[in-house]
């Protein structure tokens, strides 16, 4: 755990924002952008750099959906759970992904390659049901298209 430290460029960003009011969320976004999540050790560093209590930082992290405290899979699958996607079968996609990957939602496959999460509307309602893998969007996805899509990201079987 302790070897995780915030790299210099992110530290510079934090110092730059230190004087600005309301900086905490922007700083946490930056940390997450770098690591893919917010490692526990970095929270203590941020607390020191910004001179705010760790408790306050945890309060903010746990309030917002976007911040993650655990490391996601190398390939992050996000299935849209907006209303249009829900009506058009978003839940079926999640079930099928869980079945194919053998993991539940919000957990990482054993090899660390994939994680599945349900996310808030990604605004591609015209393409419902939609999902993204590492930010790349896939529209009007059918359950039988999932295996070929996963294969593109190195999933065998």
């Amino acid at each position, binding site marked *: 755990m302790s070897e995780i430290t915030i790299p210099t460029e992110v530290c510079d960003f934090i110092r730059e924002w230190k004087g600005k009011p309301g900086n905490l969320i922007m700083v946490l976004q930056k940390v997450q952008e770098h690591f893919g999540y917010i490692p526990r050790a970095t929270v203590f560093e941020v607390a020191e750099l910004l001179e705010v209590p760790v408790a306050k930082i945890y309060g903010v992290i746990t309030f917002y*959906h976007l911040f993650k405290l655990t490391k996601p899979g190398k390939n992050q699958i996000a299935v849209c759970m907006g209303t*249009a996607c829900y009506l058009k079968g978003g839940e079926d996609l999640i*079930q099928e992904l869980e079945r194919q990957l053998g993991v539940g939602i919000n957990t990482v496959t054993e090899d660390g390659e994939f994680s599945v999460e349900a996310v*808030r509307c990604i605004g591609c309602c*015209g393409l419902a049901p939609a999902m993204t893998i590492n930010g790349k969007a896939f529209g009007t996805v059918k359950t039988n298209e999932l295996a070929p899509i996963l294969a593109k990201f190195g999933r065998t079987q």
Partner: protein
Amino acid sequence: MKFSHEDLNLHRDTLRAGKTVTQVLVGMGTCGIAAGAKTAFQSLKKSISENALQVEVELKQTGCLGLCFSEPTVEVKSVNGTSTVYGNVDTAFAERIVKEHLSTGIALSEHVYETPAADLFDPEAEPLKQKRIVLRNCGFMDPEKIDEYIAREGYAALSKAIATMTGDDIIEELKTSGLRGRGGAGFPCWQKWGFSKDTDSDQKYIVCNADEGDPGAYMDRSVLEGDPHTVLEAMALAGYTIGANQGYIYIRAEYPLAIERLNMAIEQAKERGLLGQNILGSAFSFEIELRLGAGAFVCGEETALLASIEGKRGMPIPRPPFPSVKGLWGKPTVINNVETSANIPMIILKGGAWYAEIGTASSKGTKVFAVTGKIKNSGLIEVPMGSTLREIIYDICGGIEGGKRFKAAQTGGPSGGCITAGFLDVPIDYESLQSIGSMMGSGGMIVMDEDDCMVDVTKFYLEFTVDESCGKCAPCRVGGRTCYDILDRITKGLGEPDDIQKLTDIGHAMRKASLCGLGQTAPNPVMSTIKYFEEEYHAHIHDKKCPTGKCKSMVTYTINDLCIGCRLCARACPVDCIAGEAKELHLIDQSQCIKCGLCFDNCKFEAIDRT
């Protein structure tokens, strides 16, 4: 170069005097790109450079045209002004557009997006169902180039206001226009601005709420991606009016493209002296910064939003005092959402009276809707207030997908309610929607057909609000959870006779006692569906049946004698739980069945019963 008023006018004239050439516009909003607009763009570019065309062609990216169902879209605008919009453009078709349409000047007949685009591109087409004020630039210009915005009257309103109007003049103009906030509640815009202007303070703020959290709504994203400068201009106008010199745009981190384009727009506007110190050479200065949201629906509530900008947990606080008097860091703050903002430059430029001519008595102007769900042509539309649901669904969006029967349209997202077939002809405005138990909301309109279970959809919304409740007040925290639990039970076939009464009682309590809009409106989907679809609740509770088959735990699939043993269902089954040799009666292993319904959908002989 930093512009003066004169420079801006001269620059606009120069831009407009430029030669007109054939334009090829590719819609590059998030959904366009997701559907492959970048590939289409590259193919067009390559093909244009490889073919020696007789005509000069300008290829450019634009924001979203709103034809989401046919992305990626490409519009060819010829010199004489005629337009053809092609949908679903892939590499092969992109080449054909160049080799055939651009080479010969004769439009192709395939992939053409016909109605309702006629409304948009042929001003003579009558009756004009759509009217574009908010989306006036989306799909028509390159959002990454300030010059294109300037050529389309951009920053002319700001220039007019600074040169010739006082803050009171602007507020008067807004009052005449009748513009009401498009975020949901519909509060008159001029009043908000007026309160802030009349409050003495050393510091005031303008905030643009771009934290579009409603599932199924993406109007704001399209405006930000397609026309970012209009939001900046509106914020500067607000700043000039109330005497603020700092603005914040609170935007979802989930909208990376919008963030990128806004940052670009802010830089460009600063270079031209249209933002920053001494705007257009005047004494007025105004800065805009972005603040990213981090995924919390409650932050659409204005006091929660302000807490979030301050870097705190986004918890709402009781009002009054209202933010227009005591807002960000305790200072007077005007908060407008993106769509409201996009109206403002046009009102200043053309006058409040012009705007007030559009719409109904109490609701002026236009409304943008993101029409999605079981609709044939899903997309982004803008209609005058007072249009009917029938016009939107059938005339503009082509009716229900697959020729099914319309059941309800849900507006206002998790805070709204449904509009049923009986209200298809009600003119839509703030009051009429409220009177039928729905609400305008931010503009998400989800169309549901006969296959959708209203109890299941209501459970979906409650799950959302329970998850998004900040937990500060008990009516929302406990009431929402209890409603969800009851609905969950009902959809699992475990409903009890007094459940409807319980839901109604809790709903009333939540409406009365919750601290903020989220909790007060969270029971709306419940109340609205009980009002219009009570029989569906009864079917679930008393008959233990889901009429649509959506509630999976109440459904069993079995194979009847009509089965000819074609094996279609067995092949479709994702869990391989259908046994039987070819040409023999098949059997579903109920212990393995996941009730996905694929066998039912695939059977051509009505041999599968859903009970």
